[in-house]
């Protein structure tokens, strides 16, 4: 009798508990505390984005088609932390008329330099506002294919597909079988490499003039931003810290963004190569001037209230700032936009803006959903998660374009 009573009671208790769990799961997550007011930036973010989204530099001044395009294929191997450079050349029979990019950064460059009607399809990440500065425009234009939807790519009959190191071998093999030429682009981790890739893309699609104009604009806007920055006695030391305690190092986009605004990436300074996880104790030891965290992650509040990190100078001086992850992932001309926003966080703060500053915080106005890490980390994660082997340095051939020759060297 007692046994039946216990089990019956237990059974009833279980049902009630499951009901409670169900109700708890249905409750919405609380919104992030929006305690950061929009900051000031050296340049107006919205206008800067518009300027970087469309450039026209006159007619192409390249040689006639068919053409052979020599280039340096620079790839970063995160396993060995080495860069590998190979001198190659690409043979193109004619100007590509239907171009597809397999990566967000390349899409953003194409959007600026290539006549839009020649972009045949867009990767869905390029239509995702968490990753792309042009999400709205791309969603409105379409068509959009998912990363693994090779058939949709084949369906638009492109005559040139831009792939990157995390594009899967299967994807490339299907392109090869369909005799669609694809070009493997290399490293995009610094503004210099982005400028190089922009010019290369320009030559590949026969829009050298536009590409040169975009590079000129990148340099001009970077100089404008730098010209408006105050001159601190020493470069400010910035640390980007994500929800998992990871900090970007030497080869990350963050280092390049910091350099663009005369700041130092503390991760790089402390010898972090790609990305590394550090604990609060180490963060306190490194003691940055400013800590940047992914916006809306709740990490800012957690850092401020943490009993160890609360002793850090940045926390004591109220210099823990949020920035949407999209700015930290930028690996296109929009890295200038990232530099503009970061300059706002570092030099503008929440108070009076330095003289001559015309912008307002694009990031905080947009309320873009944040996320830590960079495009490079994202690629690495995707690569590991999908067990997609790298194809760095493989000679690519097929369709109209062919890679010729190679002269490899490795540099640490």
């Amino acid at each position, binding site marked *: 009798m007692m046994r039946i*009573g216990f089990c019956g009671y237990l059974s009833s208790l*279980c*049902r009630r508990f*499951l009901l409670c769990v169900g109700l708890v799961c249905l409750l919405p997550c*609380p919104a992030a505390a929006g305690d950061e007011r929009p900051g000031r930036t050296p340049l107006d973010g919205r206008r800067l984005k518009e300027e970087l989204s469309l450039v026209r530099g006159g007619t192409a001044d390249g040689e006639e088609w068919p053409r052979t395009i020599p280039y340096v294929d620079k790839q970063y191997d995160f396993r060995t932390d080495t860069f590998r450079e190979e001198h190659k050349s690409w043979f193109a029979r004619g100007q590509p008329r239907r171009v597809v990019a397999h990566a967000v950064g390349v899409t953003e460059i194409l959007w600026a330099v290539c006549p839009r009607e020649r972009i045949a399809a867009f990767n869905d990440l390029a239509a995702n506002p968490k990753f792309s500065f042009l999400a709205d425009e791309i969603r409105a234009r379409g068509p959009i294919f998912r990363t693994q939807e090779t058939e949709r790519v084949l369906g638009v009959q492109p005559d040139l597909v831009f792939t990157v190191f995390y594009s899967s071998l299967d994807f490339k093999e299907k392109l090869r079988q369909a005799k669609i030429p694809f070009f493997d682009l290399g490293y995009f981790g610094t503004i210099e490499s982005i400028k190089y890739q922009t010019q290369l893309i320009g030559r590949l699609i026969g829009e050298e003039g536009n590409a040169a104009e975009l590079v000129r604009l990148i340099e001009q806007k970077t100089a404008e931003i730098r010209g408006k920055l105050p001159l601190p006695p020493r470069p400010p030391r910035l640390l980007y810290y*994500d*929800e998992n305690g990871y900090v970007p190092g030497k080869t990350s986009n963050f280092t390049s963004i910091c350099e663009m605004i005369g700041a130092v990436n503390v991760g790089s300074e402390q010898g972090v190569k790609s990305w*590394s996880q550090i604990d609060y104790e180490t963060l306190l030891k490194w003691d940055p001037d400013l800590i940047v965290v992914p916006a809306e992650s709740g990490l800012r509040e957690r850092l401020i209230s943490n*009993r160890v990190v609360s002793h850090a100078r940045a926390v004591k001086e109220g210099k823990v700032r949020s920035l949407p992850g999209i700015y930290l992932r930028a690996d296109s001309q929009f890295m200038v936009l990232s530099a503009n926003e970061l300059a706002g966080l570092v030099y503008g703060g929440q108070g009076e803006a330095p003289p001559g500053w015309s912008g307002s915080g694009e990031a905080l106005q947009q309320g873009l959903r944040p996320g830590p890490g960079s495009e490079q980390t994202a690629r690495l994660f995707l690569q590991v998660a999908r067990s997609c082997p790298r194809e760095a340095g493989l000679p690519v051939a097929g369709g109209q374009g062919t890679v010729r020759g190679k002269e490899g060297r490795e540099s640490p």
Partner: protein
Amino acid sequence: MKVTSGRTYLLALLLAGLTALGAVLALSHGSWDIGPAEAAEIVLARLGISTAAVDPVRSAIVWDGRLPRTLVALLVGFSLAVAGTIMQGVFKNPMASPDVIGVSSGAALGAVASLYLGAAGQSLFALPLAAVLFSLATLAAVFLIATGRGRTSVPTLLLAGIALNLIFGALTSFIIAMSTREFDAGRVIVTWLMGDLNDRSWEHVLIVFPTTALALLGTMFFVKDLNILMIGEDTAANLGVNIAWARNSLIVFAAIMTGGAVAVGGVIGFVGLLAPHMMRALAGPDNRRLVPLAGLLGAVFVIYADLFVRLLVQVDLKVGVLTSMLGGPFFLVLIIRHRKRFEYL
């Protein structure tokens, strides 16, 4: 195998010593150069035992950083090992572990869901709460499935556990697959699933300590019944043991400990399987000795694993990965060398 009280005390002393040594090492290792003497001074000062003046920053590092992490490692290891001991005893199955009835995979699903939905970023308690709730919900579901006409069937309980393990495993994989498109969430989830004790705070201690303490007290209350249950249910019934009450209570305690441990430490494998086996070979099958000793061994295992992970900071090794990497081969060796010893189970 006859195990004397002297041997038990010796084992207890050895494990307690290893735990204390591990704790001292953990407290005196980090990026700040704080030695064992200074760490001890800080702890004593914060406890009000010493009046020595301590630097507030160094004090925060030891008291609010290193000490909670060490305590969480200790409690997680202890909980998983005790939960494993209970499961192996109750199910009379040497392969049983805390996750055999789906509790840890339920906790993992709850935690992963909270990470994916962003709740974990809003509150420090969201992830542990989700993990504990899901583990208890799993437990409730398993009991609901296995209970009919007022009786709980052990084989059905195990089968339901296996089925729920599969379902929750698939759902977790589904969330991981979705999160590969949300790179940041994906990375956080994968790290959590590998078991991570980085930056654990007093709040985490506050979560895992009550679950460990209460469930341990409850377990010790039923530990004699567990011994009798291992002989056989008929014998237990003849000796006046309320089988269903004792067995179900023990399973609930094991589930609570597992849920608490997974909630604060992520998925840390093999501790719940390995520690009871090792200790059973040394201290014998009497659960009155085995439960606390296996718990201590689990604590030692996780403390040293975490210390090792901290030493190899550049490698980004996770504590759950390390315990499985060490535990798996060690367990195989143990099985091969002591095949006959396991037969008494």
